[in-house]
């Protein structure tokens, strides 16, 4: 299954809604698409919506940690929202949640 990503920018926040399986097949292209928007717009908050991601491995984790480094270097913030239980398990196992906060929904990010 190919991954799909929808991008939505509201002021300085970029929301990326990803669907599919996050493995090495798709991470390079997704990385380029996200970084292009981070570089060409004045984004200081990146929200990765993983609600429709059914699988993630260390290539997908590498994508997230790379965006964390990029956004943090510009004093920005990054959040993960909507991870399914199976994806959340891998995120917690990797410890990525210590760097990138996990929220249930995009609304939760806004309200927090």
């Amino acid at each position, binding site marked *: *299954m190919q991954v799909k990503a929808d991008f939505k920018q509201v002021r300085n926040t970029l929301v990326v809604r990803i669907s599919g399986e996050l493995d*090495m097949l798709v991470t390079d292209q997704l990385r380029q698409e996200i970084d292009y928007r981070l570089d060409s717009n004045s984004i200081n908050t990146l929200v990765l919506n993983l609600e429709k991601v059914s*699988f993630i491995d260390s290539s997908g*984790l590498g994508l997230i940690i790379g965006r964390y480094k990029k956004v943090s270097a510009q004093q920005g913030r990054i959040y993960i929202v909507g991870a399914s239980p199976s994806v959340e398990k891998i995120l917690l196992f990797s410890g990525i949640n210590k760097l990138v906060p996990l929220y249930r929904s995009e609304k939760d990010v806004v309200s927090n």
Partner: protein
Amino acid sequence: MNVKNYVRLEFSSLPENVSFARSCVGAFASQLDCTLEDIEEIKLVVSEAVSNSIIHGYNNDPSQTIEVVVSILENNSLEIIIKDYGRGIENIDQAMEPTYSSDPSRMGLGFTFMRSFMDEMDVVSEPGKGTSVRLLRCFPSQDHRAMA
């Protein structure tokens, strides 16, 4: 240990085949008395091992070959062997360290996932000749679980 059933896959070292390999192994493993969570973990470790072969073993050369042999053994355990004929690993102990990666854009968790989600992991590698990863996961039968 005798083999009850096995499947042997051979495919090009293409990123498209990572999901193919994990789906095949996951479907095969479902013959065992295991949960969906078990299947997800098995798919993850296959994804990690095959990705390692493509990225590190073959340096993303799509013309190379990866072999996967997955077997159900008599004691209801699942054995997975992932083999490449790539550049091999110079220092296996270093490669197995959590968060070690020769590629700074990756997290270096592949072997950590394999070791954590499987009961046994053996890595045999020779520089210039390739790497073979053997993974074993045991699934106690329902009878054994009832007695426990």
